[in-house]
């Protein structure tokens, strides 16, 4: 029997699990102190909240933000479709390193303001709203990272954050044409553009801001067990909800995954959930094989991949770019445990639609191209956008896509029926 999952897709249950674990790992007083540390940090890329405040407060921060976002989704009467699931899981993951209730709600408010200003329903802005918090550090950095007087920095951070959310709603759908939907983290690209503008102003007016990297791998086993538990639950529940069969899985594997592909359409939420779990499991296994330690950013990356398992990613299209990055790391003798390399491996899956559309070899080459691009891109946005890989992936995607278009011959158009090559 196919169970209707679209009301939750298990997201609130995962959030509640994280909340329970938070109280297992920390005392209530430690949680409060830790949350305060998180909310008042500059939260730029990469701020590992576990290093900053401990595992318990980080789990609680993630849980609170996901439940808050889920409440907004339910308030707008939106079902948990593929993109909404991806958005919520991205929030869950990135609230381990950069998103919190304070900085995200400022951006959310900007997106809401757009809907009110344009007199459109809140439901029609919900997808961008969920991903918009990738730009949340723009507020935190201004409020707490520039060593300005709080009387100036807090109102300024709030105004800039709200304005960014407002503009992002118009920018994100517009820039999707740049990469033609081949970068699944499109809001990362849109947000990256705004981050460049903001960072340029910050550099011009303030020399005290530095973006630092904080990472802690002390909780490797705990994070590994939590992520394994989540993927296995998703796979089992998805399988049961799909009538204990994988017959229709081929429909998902056949898709290129190019934006905007919602795997939950046609009542396929069960098999989409199974796909999310399996896709996540492949990334977890890859990290383990490579001996990569689980940190907050790595955990966050895995949760994001799980989310996009309902919105474009599946085992067939993520493996080629993933292997491409690994190949470059091996060729140049780089360190897999360097956090920027780890994230490049995980988030190279943003380019999954390229391998889905053009095949394994092109997908592999795309992954190889992605690593050098992403390695240099954080210098131009100053860590103000959390989706640095998503921003970089847009450039990789546009280069590869244009090469493929250039190689395409006009006398060999795409055909779905050989008998209908020309009209009669």
């Amino acid at each position, binding site marked *: 029997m196919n169970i209707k999952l679209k009301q939750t897709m298990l997201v609130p249950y995962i959030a509640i699990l994280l909340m329970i674990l938070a109280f297992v790992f920390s005392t209530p007083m430690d949680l409060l102190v830790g949350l305060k540390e998180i909310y008042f940090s500059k939260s730029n890329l990469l701020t590992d909240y576990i290093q900053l405040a401990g595992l318990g407060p980080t789990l609680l921060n993630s849980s609170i933000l996901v439940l808050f976002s889920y409440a907004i989704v339910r308030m707008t009467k939106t079902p948990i479709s593929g993109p909404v699931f991806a958005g919520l899981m991205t929030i869950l993951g990135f609230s381990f390193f950069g998103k919190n209730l304070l900085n995200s709600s400022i951006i959310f408010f900007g997106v809401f303001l757009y809907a009110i200003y344009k007199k459109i329903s809140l439901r029609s802005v919900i997808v961008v709203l969920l991903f918009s918090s990738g730009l949340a550090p723009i507020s935190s950095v201004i409020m707490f990272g520039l060593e300005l007087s709080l009387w100036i920095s807090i109102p300024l951070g709030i105004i800039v954050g709200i304005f960014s959310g407002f503009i992002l709603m118009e920018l994100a759908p517009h820039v999707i044409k740049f990469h033609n*939907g081949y970068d699944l983290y499109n809001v990362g690209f849109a947000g990256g553009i705004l981050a460049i503008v903001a960072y340029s102003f910050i550099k011009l007016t303030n020399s005290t801001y530095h973006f630092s990297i904080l990472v802690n791998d002390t909780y490797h086993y705990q994070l590994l067990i939590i992520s394994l538990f989540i993927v296995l639950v998703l796979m089992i529940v998805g399988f049961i909800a799909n009538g204990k069969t994988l017959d229709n899985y081929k429909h998902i594997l056949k898709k290129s995954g190019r934006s905007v592909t*919602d795997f939950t359409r046609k009542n396929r939420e069960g098999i989409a959930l199974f796909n999310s779990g399996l896709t996540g499991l492949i990334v977890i296994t890859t990290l383990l094989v490579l001996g990569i330690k689980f940190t907050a950013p790595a955990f966050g990356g895995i949760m994001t991949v799980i989310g996009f398992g309902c919105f474009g990613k599946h085992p067939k299209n993520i493996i080629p770019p993933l292997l491409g990055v690994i190949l470059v790391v091996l060729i140049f003798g780089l360190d897999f445990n360097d956090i920027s390399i780890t994230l490049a491996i995980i988030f190279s899956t943003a380019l999954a639609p390229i391998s889905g559309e053009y095949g394994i070899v092109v997908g592999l080459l795309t992954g190889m191209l992605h690593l050098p691009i992403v390695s240099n891109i954080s210098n131009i946005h100053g860590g103000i956008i959390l989706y640095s890989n998503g921003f970089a992936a847009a450039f990789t995607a546009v280069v590869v896509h244009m090469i493929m278009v250039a190689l395409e011959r006009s006398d060999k158009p795409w055909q779905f029926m050989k008998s209908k090559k020309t009209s009669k």
Partner: protein
Amino acid sequence: MAVHEIEKNIKIIDEMTMYLFNKGFHKLGFELDYTSKKTVITITVKNTEKELVEVIKNEIFIERDQELEDYGWELLGECSGSREIMCVGMLVDDMQLIYKDSNTIVTFIRNH
């Protein structure tokens, strides 16, 4: 009414043109009826076999998706290389397919 309403209607026509043209159907007719309540887009694919009706029925799944509409509508009609036609079904409320006098007539209804 959603934002960019007129642009979205034009994009639906773009996407269908690209889709049909790439499949080898080069004789097409279009009609757009825009009112304050709804838009009706009629596309006539001339000189076809009845098989096309089934193909379109299978490839376009109609389920208006309000939350994805404002996120992905600008992609419509943009990618000539793609084999997939995904977005149109998310932007319309109803689709009617008729085969008449060797022509396939596709009608999309989009409520405002």
